[in-house]
């Protein structure tokens, strides 16, 4: 316990210049990050961005080709690895438990690896699995299994928690439960590093978000800061039928930026009131028709789009989802 006193000062997780190469891919191309105690950092990026590779280097599972990792000021491989492992909790993106073992047996097994830790039942209570105490892990639902995994990560009473896509594939209710558990951990001074490709999750859960693509961190800040940096009050997505070019849109009032996106355009717009009539006027003047117009508050999704020119999710899925959302209005 005396270690906790001086933990407050330095970062819990720190990486400088991390690089990892695989044959033919630069999976991680120079990543720096820091997470302080009591803080949650989200790595937000699409599949293949290098999130898992980064996290596994931080967890001491993968050796970086270049760069340095320190947890609580201590690097991996300095003869203190066991000491570090006592203080971190890890949930891997894809790990399964032996199906025949019961929930309590698995939590107890993980508890036995740590010199100090929490009571097994207390942790099950925390993740809402006490009622499933004697169920076999193979009989749990996806969300329950995820929470079991979280329980095993928490039972050693870690000071830093690494969660690789903790809510991917979960239903909304299960996600919210996971978020509550993570929030409680952070509120007690734990450091959290999680990866996600859900901007909603990043915005809701993280103090800071690092947007990652192709092995690099493109931008970092609080969700609010990142969105503000877009410099837009509104984001306008439109598709035109007829001769309209980006240049025709860029000089409209309040327009800050225009980017092509698939068939249409994405506009970062300041005040919306003067913009809309001018837009319609311009279309009329060009003899073009507005096939589609959507206006929304900027989100992290837009930040990602702005930074990479691509959508966070699979493009096809995203277009379909937006279309469905609009049809429902």
């Amino acid at each position, binding site marked *: 316990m005396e270690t906790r006193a001086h933990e407050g000062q330095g970062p819990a997780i720190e990486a400088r210049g991390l690089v990892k190469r695989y044959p033919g891919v630069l999976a991680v191309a120079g990543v720096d990050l820091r997470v302080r105690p009591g803080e949650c950092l989200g790595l937000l990026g699409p599949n293949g961005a290098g999130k898992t590779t980064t996290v596994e280097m931080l967890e001491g*599972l993968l050796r970086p080709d270049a760069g340095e990792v320190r947890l609580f000021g201590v690097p991996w491989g300095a003869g203190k690895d066991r000491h570090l492992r006592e203080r971190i909790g890890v949930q891997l993106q894809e790990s399964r438990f032996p199906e025949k073992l019961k929930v309590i047996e698995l939590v107890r097994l993980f508890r036995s690896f740590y*010199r100090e830790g929490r009571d097994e039942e207390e942790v099950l209570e925390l993740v809402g699995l006490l009622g499933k105490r004697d169920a076999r892990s193979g009989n749990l639902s996806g969300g329950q299994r995820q929470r079991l995994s979280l329980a095993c990560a928490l039972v050693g009473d870690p000071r830093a928690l690494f969660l690789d896509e903790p809510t991917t594939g979960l239903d909304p209710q299960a996600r919210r439960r996971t978020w509550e558990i993570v929030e409680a951990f952070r509120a007690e001074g734990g450091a959290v590093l999680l990866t996600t490709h859900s901007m909603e999750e990043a915005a809701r859960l993280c103090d800071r978000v690092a947007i990652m693509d192709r092995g690099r961190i493109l931008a970092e800040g609080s969700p609010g800061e990142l969105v503000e940096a877009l410099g837009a009050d509104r984001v306008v997505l439109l598709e035109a039928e007829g001769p309209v070019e980006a240049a025709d849109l860029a000089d409209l009032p309040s327009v800050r930026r225009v980017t092509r996106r698939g068939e249409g355009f994405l506009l970062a717009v300041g005040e919306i009131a003067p913009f809309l009539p001018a837009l319609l006027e311009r279309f009329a003047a060009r003899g073009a028709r507005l096939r589609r117009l959507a206006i929304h508050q900027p989100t992290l999704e837009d930040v990602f789009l702005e930074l990479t020119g691509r959508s966070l999710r699979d493009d096809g899925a995203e277009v379909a989802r937006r279309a469905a959302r609009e049809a429902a209005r």
Partner: protein
Amino acid sequence: MNGSARGLRLALRRNPLVQLTLARLREFAREPEAVFWVFVFPVLLTLALGIAFRDPDPATGERYIEFLLPGLVGLNIMGSGMWGIGFPVVQARRQHLLKRFRTTPMRRADFLAAYGLSRLLFLVAEVIALFGFGWLFFGVAVRGSWLALAVVCLAGSLGFQGLGLLVAARPRSVEVVSGWMNFVMLPMWLLSGTFYDWHRFPAWLHPAIRALPLTALNDALRAVANHGAGLSAVLPETLLLLAWGAVSFALAVRLFRWT
């Protein structure tokens, strides 16, 4: 009194070796097929062969079942030692459980020792089941010392566990490890004299056959059970088995893949 019992319970509960071993035992006991192949099948095989060959050989006056039973015990120790390690290790690797364990302060030694310990507990049950069955049904007695028998079985089990761990050190799929297991065990099924005397093979093959761990195990088991040999008489075979175990264990630890 009550307090110290609770203290002991808590100590066992917090002991990684105990918990890892319990996990192995539970997984096995909750797997009906595994229980069948390790316990029921050998007994059925003994029963069938024992009935088929219950009459004494007119030339030697020996019964085949007496020859066969130690061989079946040897075969069982090989199968359960290799499968009992190889299959769950590869399964845990495939499911990323090994990787997950690596993120905890779990000691590798505890992890490996738990496999050995759980196998040894089963070994006692397996050997007692087979010899007990042979004794009850066919009156096959163990002539030598039980201590010698225990030491030989232990050495055999450790030898095959080492081999099992070596075969399972790298594969990521159950299919691959099954292929290698069978590749390693098949020659011993054929050559090591489980069902017939391996001296029938041409003499130039004998040195190779003699070096196989199952041959050593079968010969030592027969010496003790059929001919009443003591520990010193089976020392060479015992050492050979331990050497197989030590060499393959050392190799396995070097090659072992956690991911």
